[in-house]
């Protein structure tokens, strides 16, 4: 009889062959090898089901089986494997991984098992994390992300409409109209909302303009999550639009504290598209204008309340931060930050990253500070 280790080695070899077949473009063989890998890794893990003290081998094998099940989109199998692992005594680090896999499996199963059909102009957004219960979440965590999605849709509509990047002011009436977002009944998941873009009526045939925007948005978010600059550049070639997108997408991403994952799904042209944002917002900005790495110009972070200097002047390039340290700072913002992010965060508490450029202070990055994130930091 093969040992657990032998079965595990056979499973890893089958997984490797599945990856090679996929790279070669042979989807059928990739699927067959993946199913074989799942079967073998599950058998290896199940040999340890009752050996609760054989750690970390027991939990690593169950985590492996759950991971292969996720790749095979067998959500139920993933749930079972995670449950076996968590019923034992996994090390903390592995237990964290297992809980993350479980969240993803719940999301996938939720879409399948409840026969949830998403129209091609709709986005399902689900958030999960320590402050998010089953069907309940802090309002600010949910609606802030809905607002960010609204801003992303406006920009996607402008870009796909070949309108040059708008550096200030409001979008045209036509763009605003087709960028409207409708919230449908929330369903209990971790916390799920369904958003529909552009119209309260479905377009029955063909790919609507809204569905093109949704599909474009999920492709861009997928590239953002993978930190794949080349893929993002191919979806958003215009640099100003790309910078704006990255700044907004970072507001959508999990903070790693109260929100650990943001899942988005839609029905693409011929298949369901899903993106899971699990990478935390990077502390170091990538896209908000040029950076200088010299030691003379370090980046400093301030926290405080965001105010506009002059709300009647739409071309203003400065804003005001009423600092927690009692100091009010007049900060310069690049156009993408000023026109896309600052309007969303006006009067909110924010954390800004600032660089000194000659006499002016340039804000390079900004994120909202919620009461939850302050408590847990």
């Amino acid at each position, binding site marked *: 009889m093969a*040992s657990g280790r032998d079965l595990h080695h056979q499973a*890893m070899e089958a997984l490797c062959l599945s990856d*090679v077949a996929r*790279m070669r473009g042979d989807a059928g063989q990739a699927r067959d090898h993946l199913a074989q890998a799942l079967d073998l890794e599950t058998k290896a893990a199940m040999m340890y089901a009752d050996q609760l003290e*054989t750690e*970390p081998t027991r939990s*690593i094998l169950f985590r492996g089986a759950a991971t292969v099940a996720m790749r095979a989109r067998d959500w139920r199998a993933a749930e079972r494997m995670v449950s076996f692992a968590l019923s034992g005594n996994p090390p903390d680090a592995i237990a964290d991984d297992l809980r993350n896999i479980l969240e993803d499996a719940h999301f996938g199963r939720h879409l399948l098992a409840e026969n949830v059909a998403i129209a091609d102009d709709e986005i399902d957004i689900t958030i999960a994390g320590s402050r998010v219960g089953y069907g309940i979440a802090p309002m600010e965590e949910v609606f802030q992300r809905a607002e960010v999605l609204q801003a992303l849709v406006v920009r996607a509509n402008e870009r796909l409409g070949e309108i040059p990047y708008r550096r200030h002011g409001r979008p045209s009436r036509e763009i605003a109209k087709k960028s409207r977002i409708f919230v449908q009944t929330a369903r209990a998941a971790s916390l799920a909302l369904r958003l529909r873009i552009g119209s309260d009526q479905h377009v029955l045939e063909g790919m609507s303009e809204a569905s093109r925007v949704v599909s474009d948005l999920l492709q861009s978010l997928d590239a953002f999550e993978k930190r794949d600059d080349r893929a993002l550049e191919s979806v958003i070639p215009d640099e100003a639009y790309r910078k704006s997108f990255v700044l907004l997408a970072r507001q959508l991403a999990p903070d790693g504290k109260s929100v650990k994952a943001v899942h988005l799904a839609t029905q693409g042209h011929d298949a369901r598209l899903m993106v899971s944002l699990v990478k935390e917002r990077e502390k170091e900005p990538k896209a908000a204008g040029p950076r200088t790495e010299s030691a003379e110009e370090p980046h400093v972070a301030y926290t405080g309340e965001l105010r506009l200097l002059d709300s009647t002047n739409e071309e203003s390039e400065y804003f005001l931060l009423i600092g927690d340290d009692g100091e009010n700072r007049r900060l310069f913002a690049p156009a993408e930050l000023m026109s896309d992010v600052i309007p969303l965060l006006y009067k909110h508490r924010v954390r800004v990253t600032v660089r000194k450029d000659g006499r002016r202070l340039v804000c390079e990055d900004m994120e909202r500070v919620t009461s939850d994130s302050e408590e847990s930091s």
Partner: protein
Amino acid sequence: MPRLKIDLDHLAANGRPGLTQSEAGHLVEAAAIAAEAGGTPIPLDMVFTGIKSCKPRVTGPTVTDQMRRCYADLDEAVEWGACSIATVAMEVLQGLTVWERSPKSGFGFDYYLAPLNQEDDAAHANFFAEATHVLEVSGTLQDDATEMDRRVKEKLRRLKRRPQILPAIVVVVDFRRVRAKAVKHG
């Protein structure tokens, strides 16, 4: 002092405790593809920095058309190729070998390392407990001189934010500039 050597043919021919011959063969072929795509085909001299500064000779197979067809997804081939270079580099630089693998979320594997001279007791049920380090690998072909350091920093940042079961070694291989960096965490 003899020159350090990263012999990928030896890896492909022998596998390792946690890598079958067939798996090792695929990783090695991917390294040859990645090196060719980076503009410096194997054999090559790769500059290592970090835990040890050296310039080992990397030897391995010659790329064939069949290999080019097989590893058509260059991004993935670069990641795999980096794994084969990191695997042998760990033996040469740290005396550690790939003891086991476990699949990662998405794609790729976590590599668990153990000392080279560790006795391989096939009957030992708790075989992952014999690993002493985890290896985190990444490869790049990007035309950006700062990319390797950025990836090392990013991997270290993530490692610091989460509890780890074992000390980790991060290796990033830049096939375009023919260099690699290895750093320890924990």
